[in-house]
């Protein structure tokens, strides 16, 4: 099978994508073998030899109808098989209480958690740079935004990709099945620092995630209560951006 080259799938919908991928792989692989064996056999059998006479024929309507209808049927079936996965991944949004605001900019990913009040745009929001934490076993909603050019949110092991387009917010979701540390590269050319624009997704078990949340996002609340509102979250990403200037 192909599993040795597709990265491990760790999302709930990734399996559907992989199943379709393998189905198409076998269909196209079979067609490939069929066409190439036919081609090679024809090239050997019908090569020019003394005394060989070419067959005078202009075609065969039944054959041509057959090889129009058969591929058409296969492709229509493939289309219908693709619809449910697409609709589940891109057209539906499972209810969830884990919402993360993802803001892409040249050449970083910012992840904003709403804080204990569950609302964005308030003083207790907590923003992380190039580092996202999510739990397993729960759908996670990410609201993708961009501050400058088009970027693309791509986690190969989640089988998830979505462009972040400036001027709009695009809501996406994923649900991870296995804890770990996964790379999140930008998949859309975004300038000279495109290569190397990446973040890490830390996937925790629900308990670890609760612990992480308490230690990191609730710290933000404590800080926000002490400091004047709004200061804490604005300073942090800027300071961290400086440390990652390698792209230049």
């Amino acid at each position: 099978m192909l599993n040795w080259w597709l990265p491990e799938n760790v999302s709930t919908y990734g399996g559907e994508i992989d199943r379709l991928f393998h189905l198409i792989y076998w269909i196209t692989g079979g067609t490939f073998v069929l066409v190439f064996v036919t081609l090679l056999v024809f090239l050997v059998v019908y090569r020019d030899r003394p005394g060989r006479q070419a067959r005078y024929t202009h075609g065969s309507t039944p054959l041509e109808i057959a090889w129009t209808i058969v591929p058409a049927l296969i492709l229509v079936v493939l289309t219908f098989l693709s619809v449910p996965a697409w609709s589940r991944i891109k057209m539906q949004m499972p209810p969830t209480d884990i919402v993360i605001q993802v803001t892409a900019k040249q050449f970083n990913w910012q992840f904003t958690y709403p804080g204990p009040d569950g609302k964005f745009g308030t003083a207790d929001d907590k923003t992380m740079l190039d580092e996202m934490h999510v739990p397993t076993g729960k759908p996670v909603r990410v609201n993708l935004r961009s501050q400058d050019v088009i970027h693309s949110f791509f986690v190969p092991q989640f089988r998830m990709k979505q462009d972040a387009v400036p001027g709009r917010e695009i809501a996406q979701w994923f649900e991870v099945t296995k804890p770990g540390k996964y790379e999140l590269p930008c998949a859309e050319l975004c300038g000279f620092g495109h290569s190397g624009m990446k973040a890490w997704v830390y996937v925790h078990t629900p308990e670890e995630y609760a612990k992480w949340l308490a230690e990191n996002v609730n710290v933000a609340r404590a800080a926000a209560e002490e400091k004047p509102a709004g200061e804490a979250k604005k300073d942090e990403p800027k300071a961290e951006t400086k440390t990652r200037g390698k792209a230049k």
Partner: protein
Amino acid sequence: MAHSATATAHMAHAGHHELGFVRTYIFSTDHKMIARQFLFLGLFMMIIGGLLALIVRWELAWPETPIPGLGMFLPETGGAIEPSAYNMAFTMHATLMVFFVIMPILAGSFGNFCIPLMIGARDMAFPFLNMLSFWVTGSAGLIMLSGFFVDGGHAAAGWTSYAPLSAVTSYTGVNWGQNIWCISLFIMGVGSMMGSINYITTIINMRAPGMSLFRMPLVVWSLFITAILLLLALPVLTSAAAMLLFDRVLGTSWFNPSGGGEPLLWQHLFWYFGHPEVYILILPAMGIASEILPVFSRKPIFGYHAMAFSMIGIAFLSWIVYGHHMFVSGMNPKLGLSFMITTMIIAVPSAIKTFNWLGTLWGGRIQFTVPMLNALAFVSMFVIGGLSGIFMASTPVDIYIQDTYFIVAHIHYVVFGGSIFGAFAAIYFWFPKMFGRMTNPALGHLHFWPTFVFFNGTFFPMHILGVGGHMRRIYNPTQYEFLQPLQHWNVFITVSALLLGVAQIPFVINFFWSLFAGKKAPANPWNSNTLEWTAPSPPPHLNWGAHVPTVYRGPYEYSSPESKDDFLPQTVPPTPARARAGRH
């Protein structure tokens, strides 16, 4: 018709002795000279585009190491490529290859050469416009090349130039480079419009007596359909390029959201042009293969009408599939579903063509000449490119493989495996007619076999990289932990690509050696049926002597029982005895 024929015949006598060097070789209105000019333009640009590709490949295999020989051009880095230069290299590689290599060679050169000669016309409908088309396209090419020398470097936002990356100077640091990109493509678009109007008019109005539409060779059909696509698609690109330029220099905000613009508008415009463009690049190559396979199988093409109608079907469908480039762009996902359906359907006419090509070989008497080998490479590589397209057509799978090397593999199987092998096939096939001399078959084999092997060595492993998640357009794959186990493929691909480059040397030698010292070509070296082989090699000004040929039958009557030879040219009148024999 008769009137204009005598008028042009008159012109033939008047014009023959008066044309000087400039009017014959530079500002020529003769379609054959313009075809040669387009060919030289395309081949020259192919060298630059190819070298840019090798720079990209070097960087991917051995990131941030100096490229041998580049030290004298880039003294400040010692020959190593910086990220912005890398972005420029792949942007210009694709821009040059698409707009100034494949289009000039397939549509420009072979369109100009084949259409009048194969339909029995003395020249294009508008010879002056034809000349203008070349010089406008050539100027666009020069303008495009000038971008390499401006401050800030050439365009570096990808050949797709997605806004707002391309629309705001500070996002890339490229200023005039991107402007020049827009201006050049605008001018190129005007040039190609001139050409396409000319092709359409010529094919509709100037066919020889007896040359009905369904007696036209399939390459003429393919060029006819290509010209219609060019006429309708290129204005969208020229408008989009103008809008992008206005955003950049006049402060409009078509595509920039900070001024109320919409980034996805660029993608819609670009791909509305861009998808028909893919078929503009591949349809002439399909026509060329449909021309060469019957000649060297000594058999009629299998399913002539299906071949013509499937190209028409592709042309229609090509307008409503473009959204498959935008499945994860933020376009409404419901729209994605409709584009998936149309994209799956457009695979059907391509399948029909493939099976008909196989049908043409079936029961033939196959001669492995150099043009035939290249045409067979076209068919087989196009099959791989077509099949890999099905992965992307399925929207859920595309979520994963969009913007990975799988796409890079796919497009190169279509435009290199398809269009470029088609171009090589056409060059080897029509060289005797175009230049009056035969190419050297030994050098031709020495060019074909390594090219075929190293082409696959270069592009097939890209599928594996793509399935591994390797993104396109990244400067240094070793920056990603999940790509590090795949890095050996990048090295393998680059070594293949370098050898693929070396494999083109026999072609260059063969081309120029044959041009001056090749064996003199007879009028019909391949025993072919179509009209261009009834003219001398090379054809004189206005192509035929006193009379244009009259056509009596379709173009693919090989091994017909009507003739004792294994070919029956379109111009041979049916004798009553033959007509009777044919009826049995």
